[in-house]
């Protein structure tokens, strides 16, 4: 609660001094354990802000809303460390100017919310570096291990079962801060790369493409999995991709704004053991 008051005061200062034109934060949601995004433009509204351990959504995707940052004014946003990594990636991919983003950083352990020191994405590089050091390369989740140990045929059957529930609502795409393409590959129909109806075959294509486009860019904020109405464990695929890019290319996405996107760069001595 102290942290919440601290941040409300800070938001009031930012808005009343005219430093930022908008603050993106959280407000209570439909149930006690859910939070909704809140967009405020005046200092009076700051008391509507909520900040607690239930604020888990990565809000950074709202920053790439068309026209929001084109007036070169600043926007403040509440972000967890994953969110700060998203900002770095978006800046590295030239989607926004990180100087326009004032970060109200926070993190939580259990129900305790703690503040993160810094105002711009660049101020958090030490924190992000230590996250890279401390995150295990190999994921520790039981389900992940089970999937890894299956035979290819069993894995195919597992995903067939999961993807058969997909209704192609593209909520995973809408919720993802990294899915900012004006025209997504699934929306283009000449040629039609991904079948639009939600049969399992097309669902395979969609989920493979989604995961591939996020490879080396995903910060595992979990927005996609939480948005999925049929609870497909998308995090498993994202995690496998994260593991692959760190093992093969030592790439941990979102460390800083100058990090080259992993699939848009190369080294002459990249591994090629699989090439005949």
């Amino acid at each position, binding site marked *: 609660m102290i942290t919440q008051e601290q941040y409300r005061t800070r938001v009031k200062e930012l808005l009343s001094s005219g430093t930022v034109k908008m603050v993106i934060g959280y407000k209570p949601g439909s149930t006690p354990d859910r939070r909704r995004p809140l967009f405020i433009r005046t200092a009076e509204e700051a008391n509507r802000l909520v900040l607690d351990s239930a604020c888990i959504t990565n809000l950074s995707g709202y920053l790439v809303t068309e026209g929001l940052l084109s007036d070169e004014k600043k926007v403040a946003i509440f972000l967890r460390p994953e969110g700060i990594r998203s900002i770095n990636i978006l800046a590295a991919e030239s989607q926004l100017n990180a100087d326009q983003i004032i970060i109200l950083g926070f993190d939580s352990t259990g129900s305790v919310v703690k503040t993160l020191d810094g105002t711009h994405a660049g101020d958090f590089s030490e924190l992000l570096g230590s996250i890279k050091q401390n995150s295990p390369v190999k994921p520790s989740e039981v389900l992940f291990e089970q999937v890894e140990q299956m035979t290819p045929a069993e894995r195919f059957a597992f995903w067939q079962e999961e993807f058969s529930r997909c209704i192609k609502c593209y909520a995973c795409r809408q919720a993802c801060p990294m899915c900012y393409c004006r025209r997504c590959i699934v929306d283009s129909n000449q040629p039609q790369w991904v079948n639009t109806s939600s049969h399992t075959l097309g669902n395979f294509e969609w989920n493979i493409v989604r995961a591939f486009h996020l490879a080396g860019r995903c910060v595992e904020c979990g927005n996609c999995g939480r948005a999925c109405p049929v609870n497909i464990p998308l995090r498993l695929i994202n995690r496998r991709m994260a593991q692959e890019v760190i093992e093969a290319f030592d790439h941990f996405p979102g460390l800083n704004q100058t990090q080259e996107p992993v*699939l848009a760069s190369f080294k002459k001595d990249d*591994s090629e053991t699989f090439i005949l």
Partner: protein
Amino acid sequence: MSEPFEPKIVAFVCTYCTYAGADLAGTSRLKYAPNVRTIRLPCTGRISPMFILKALQKGADGVLVSGCHPGDCHFTHGNYHARRRWMVFRSLLDFIGIPPERVKYSWISAAEGVKFAELINSVTEDIRKLGPFDQYKELIEETEAEATH
């Protein structure tokens, strides 16, 4: 089945090296398995993973992707980009349950007509041993059956 299984293989090749290598195999009158359907593209960097997926979705039992050796790319580094992409894509396919043995990658230069012929033979043999990609084909059939209703 009375007839032996003949796999359908789609080969995505770059025009400057592998396609020229295939040409050399042809003009040298080398014999190789007729199971491969070659698709010529400007560069391996142009080969989107979507192409590979689409080939499988249209009933291919195996896919071959081939281009210039590292350092030989006509566009100087298209194949370096492609190599990274394949590395990631391969592990993705594996994790989804599409056996990575069904998708092969190789470097073949314009001078390697013999390598091209040998590779086609060995890939065809490998895929023949794996058999048809039944799990995927079932999905294709299921989809087509729905479409006729």
